[in-house]
């Protein structure tokens, strides 16, 4: 005799270890199996109960499935009840047992006893498979018309499952809706409304038909709200919130896209949306649903403002749950209702201080969402204020948002710098890497700020030198770069900043164990820059750098050695360490973005904007698609090959035995006898490389790369030129400065071979070039149709400018489709001559809708790699699918009126 269910539960609860439980269950399972084998009818119900319990504990229970079938096949209600419960818990969908149960269920569905029918319906609704539901659909349909509302509501829910699993059966149930909704019984109406919702979601075309229900629904909602207390449907003062919720939800689907229906429901929505308190969860739930409906349908602006105000009321309430839903909804409304949202700035900001992280996160997103040029200052300040109190993980989010805000809506450069410094000091260790480059670019283009920033950073450093590493890196870069300005101006201002003070500070930082090696790179670079900015401190700087020539970190060692050696070549030291050129990259990107957004009024702007920031596809030629790092590598190897050629010619003694210096040594000493042409080529090449290195710095903005690549790239490029002829030194020096103005560089390179007429020609050529550029840009703004076939048209417009100091052509490629067919899988590839480098951004989409209803925009940048005049020619490969046909075509674009 096996034990009772109750005893089994007690036995399990009495077990102290999992092992013991397992023992009990194994023993019991064996007994149950045995009993099943013996066809023990009396104990069958009890065994099934036990198995359900065993199943809940996570032990195997599958062997009881067939027994459940036997139970539901028994005539008694009690057997069926236990059997169906076992079936719904022990049996999974898509099992044979389920299939076998279909006939029994069919019988039960036509039973006289409505509770047996109810059991069968519940089982069908909870576990019915698509086959079963398809088979039994006629029965379900019949039961939906049953006289008993108990069965009606159950059958309706089964119908919903049928629609979900067998969507084609939807037509069968559409006709039932009207009577169900017209019922008095709330349960039936409730399930009826859910049925309409599921039909509408499965077959959106039916919405038009169901719009006829709107007046009835509005009446129903009205009577619910205005009805007095009814004990049956009262939920802490709210009349049947579930019914209200479903009506509101359905109104939302019916009102979307229909001004007429939306108008019909406007009054009642105003009533629901404005009345009612916000203290109880039920009340808030209904208000919230009403707000969602108002925001989704075609409401007038007044109603929308009411909705936003209601959400703002939630925010100032004390329920976290309502804050959460309000913030979520406001986030969605940020794009459609920016104005009314901004009015609730205060409450939103208040949510930044909530104890619940999910609320804070959403509040942060929202604060960022409502940010614009007018409120950026105060909102950023709020974000800065909550930075120190936030947990580490959240700090990353906050700093990221602040940085984006600084980049996106700066009211002025000074504010930008101030805020950047604030973020750096408070949350520098939680900051994304490119903040340093943002900072340097702002300072670079704004000479007025150079002194201000360096002084400010210097003073912070003096007072508290153990700030975070990012801060140390940025400040040492700035102080090194603008050291001369800092010293000169502070003297005038009577500030007590001296060079020795700065050098001492650097030394302390270098020696501190809290400074990471990555930061030390920056400090070393700053030191060497100082030697050129301010005269008379070479010995001291040498003394500081000296020990690092034997530092255990190879990177640091190499820098120290290179820098130390630079003192012996004071003629080249200056140009190498010359002021960084102004970054122009950002403005160009912005310009292009603006143009794109003008061309594009469908909200693609955001998309494209992101694309310009992501790694852009570089397509050098059609077969060979490379991304930026690869390109960089190939160039580096080219450079190395060139270097090898020259270094073979002559070798001289070296003073330093450090291995890491070999590279530099060879360059310095290598090529005194090589011919001028070769040298010029090399110089060109080097310059390009230098540009590239610098571009890389600005692009990647990796904190550590900044200093390193500069040192090496500049050093190498110049070193070559220097040793050849002393005259060239001057040229190279000048060449360095000309980074800022590529027109000048072009001229300089021309002049290099002639060594004369420099100054006169320079100005002449410059003005000529400028004129040319102006003329060209006038011509090129006209778009050229480069491809037209199958209704697809590709237009390009060209614009000459420069990107990161190199002459470049920027182009926007616009593809439209005037054919009646959809163009899909659109892919454009671009190839340019080897002397140019092309960068193609991600397209704004892959598919172009027919009849000119949309376009794909892509941005192409062509950068000139070699200093010679080039006729711009582009080879396009166009891939797309139209009418199921895959088309690949090559097209050469040679009629571009650009020589650059």
């Amino acid at each position, binding site marked *: 005799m096996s034990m009772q269910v109750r005893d089994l539960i007690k036995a399990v609860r009495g077990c102290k270890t999992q092992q013991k439980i397992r023992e009990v269950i194994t023993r019991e399972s064996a007994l149950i199996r045995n009993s099943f084998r013996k066809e023990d009818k009396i104990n069958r119900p009890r065994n099934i109960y036990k198995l359900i319990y065993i199943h809940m504990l996570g032990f195997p229970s599958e062997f009881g499935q067939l027994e459940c079938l036997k139970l539901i096949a028994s005539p008694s209600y009690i057997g069926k009840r236990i059997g169906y419960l076992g079936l719904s818990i022990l049996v999974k969908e898509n099992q044979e047992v389920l299939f076998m149960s279909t006939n029994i269920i069919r019988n039960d569905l036509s039973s006289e006893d409505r509770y047996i029918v109810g059991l069968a319906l519940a089982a069908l609704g909870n576990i019915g498979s698509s086959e079963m539901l398809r088979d039994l659909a006629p029965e379900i349909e019949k039961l939906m018309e049953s006289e008993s509302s108990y069965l009606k509501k159950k059958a309706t829910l089964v119908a919903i499952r049928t629609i979900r699993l067998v969507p084609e059966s939807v037509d069968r149930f559409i006709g039932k809706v009207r009577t169900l909704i017209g019922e008095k019984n709330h349960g039936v109406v409730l399930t009826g409304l859910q049925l309409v919702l599921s039909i509408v979601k499965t077959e959106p075309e039916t919405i038009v038909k169901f719009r006829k229900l709107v007046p009835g629904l509005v009446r129903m909602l009205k009577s619910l709200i205005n009805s007095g207390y009814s004990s049956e449907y009262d939920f802490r003062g709210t009349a049947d919130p579930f019914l209200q919720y479903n009506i509101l939800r359905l109104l939302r689907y019916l009102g979307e896209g229909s001004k007429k229906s939306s108008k019909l429901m406007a009054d009642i929505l105003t009533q629901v949306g404005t009345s009612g308190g916000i203290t109880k969860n039920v009340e808030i739930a209904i208000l919230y649903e009403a707000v969602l409906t108002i925001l989704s349908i075609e409401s007038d602006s007044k109603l929308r403002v009411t909705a936003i105000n209601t959400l703002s009321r939630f925010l100032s309430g004390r329920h976290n749950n309502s804050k*959460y839903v309000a913030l979520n909804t406001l986030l969605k409304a940020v794009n459609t209702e920016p104005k009314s949202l901004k009015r609730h700035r205060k409450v939103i900001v208040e949510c930044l201080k909530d*104890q619940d992280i*999910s609320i804070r996160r959403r509040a942060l997103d929202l604060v960022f969402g409502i940010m614009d040029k007018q409120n950026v200052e105060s909102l950023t300040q709020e974000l800065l204020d909550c930075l120190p109190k936030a947990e580490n993980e959240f700090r990353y989010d906050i700093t990221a948002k602040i940085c984006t805000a600084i980049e996106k809506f700066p009211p002025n450069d000074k504010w930008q710098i101030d805020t950047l410094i604030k973020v750096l000091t408070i949350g520098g260790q939680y900051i994304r890497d490119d903040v340093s480059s943002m900072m340097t670019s702002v300072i670079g283009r704004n000479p007025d700020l150079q002194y201000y920033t360096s002084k400010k950073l210097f003073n912070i450093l003096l007072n508290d030198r153990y700030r975070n590493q990012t801060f140390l890196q940025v400040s040492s870069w700035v102080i090194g770069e603008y050291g001369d300005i800092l010293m000169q101006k502070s003297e005038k201002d009577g500030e007590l900043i001296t060079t020795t003070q700065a050098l001492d500070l650097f030394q302390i930082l270098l020696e501190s164990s809290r400074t990471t090696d990555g930061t030390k790179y920056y400090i070393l670079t700053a030191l060497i820059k100082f030697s050129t900015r301010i005269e008379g401190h070479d010995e001291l700087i040498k003394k500081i750098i000296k020990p690092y020539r034997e530092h255990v970190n190879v990177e640091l060692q190499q820098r120290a050695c290179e820098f130390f050696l630079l003192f012996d070549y004071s003629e080249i030291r200056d140009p190498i360490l010359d002021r960084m050129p102004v970054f122009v990259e950002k403005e160009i990107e912005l310009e292009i973005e603006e143009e794109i957004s003008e061309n594009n009024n469908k909200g693609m702007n955001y998309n494209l904007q992101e694309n310009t920031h992501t790694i852009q596809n570089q397509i050098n030629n059609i077969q060979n698609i490379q991304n930026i790092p690869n390109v960089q590598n190939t160039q580096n190897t080219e450079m190395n090959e060139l270097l090898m050629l020259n270094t073979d010619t002559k070798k001289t003694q070296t003073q330093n035995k450090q291995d890491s210096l070999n590279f530099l040594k060879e360059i310095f000493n290598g090529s005194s006898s090589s011919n001028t042409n070769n040298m010029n080529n090399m110089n060109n090449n080097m310059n390009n490389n230098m540009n590239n290195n610098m571009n890389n710095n600005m692009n990647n903005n990796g904190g550590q790369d900044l200093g390193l690549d500069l040192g090496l790239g500049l050093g190498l490029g110049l070193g070559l030129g220097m040793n050849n002829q002393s005259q060239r030194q001057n040229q190279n020096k000048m060449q360095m400065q000309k980074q800022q103005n590529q027109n000048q560089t072009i001229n300089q390179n021309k002049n290099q071979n002639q060594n004369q007429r420099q100054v006169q020609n320079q100005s002449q050529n410059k003005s000529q070039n400028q004129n040319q550029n102006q003329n060209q840009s006038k011509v090129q703004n006209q778009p050229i149709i480069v491809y037209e076939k199958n209704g697809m048209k590709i237009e390009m417009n060209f614009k000459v400018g420069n990107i990161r100091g190199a002459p470049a052509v920027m182009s926007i490629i616009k593809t439209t489709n005037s054919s009646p067919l959809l163009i899909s899988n659109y892919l454009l590839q671009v190839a340019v001559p080897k002397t140019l480098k092309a960068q193609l951004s991600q397209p704004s989409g892959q598919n172009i809708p027919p009849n000119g209803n949309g376009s794909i925009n892509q941005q192409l940048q062509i950068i000139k790699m070699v200093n010679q005049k080039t006729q711009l020619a582009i080879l396009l490969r166009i891939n797309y699918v139209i009418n199921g046909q895959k088309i690949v075509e090559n097209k050469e674009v040679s009629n571009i009126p650009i020589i650059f």
Partner: protein
Amino acid sequence: MIYFLLLANKQGKIRLSKWYQNFTKKQKTKLQKEVVSLCLSRSQRSCNFIEWNDYKIIYRRYASLYFMICCDTEDNELIGLEIIHHFVEILDKYFGSVCELDIIFNFQKAYNVLDEVIIDGKLQDSSKKSILRSVGTQDFLILNAPETGTLNL
């Protein structure tokens, strides 16, 4: 729509689980574990919603028991809480101030009540009275059935 409903105690022991979506046994065990540990680890001050994979977990604690439902992300979270509360109130009336032990020893009854409240993840009736009435009638049927005496559950 509710994809599944779980009832667990503070220690994470499952007291009731009902699945309205097709999951394999392995998936069920995994989901159950994840959801329960997620809900148990929440601080009391946090809101009662968790965005989880493509779903939303709505949970509420009643004494030592956690009621959790897994819904569509677009569902009204506050109504979700109301559905939980609706179910709890019905259990409370049915058992007469329900506690964990009631559900442990009478899990089959709890399942029966649930089947009267929710089918296929959707609410069946908003009237507690009508639900309790039908559960009561069915219990009465069982009590008076001739074979009940021999069953000895």
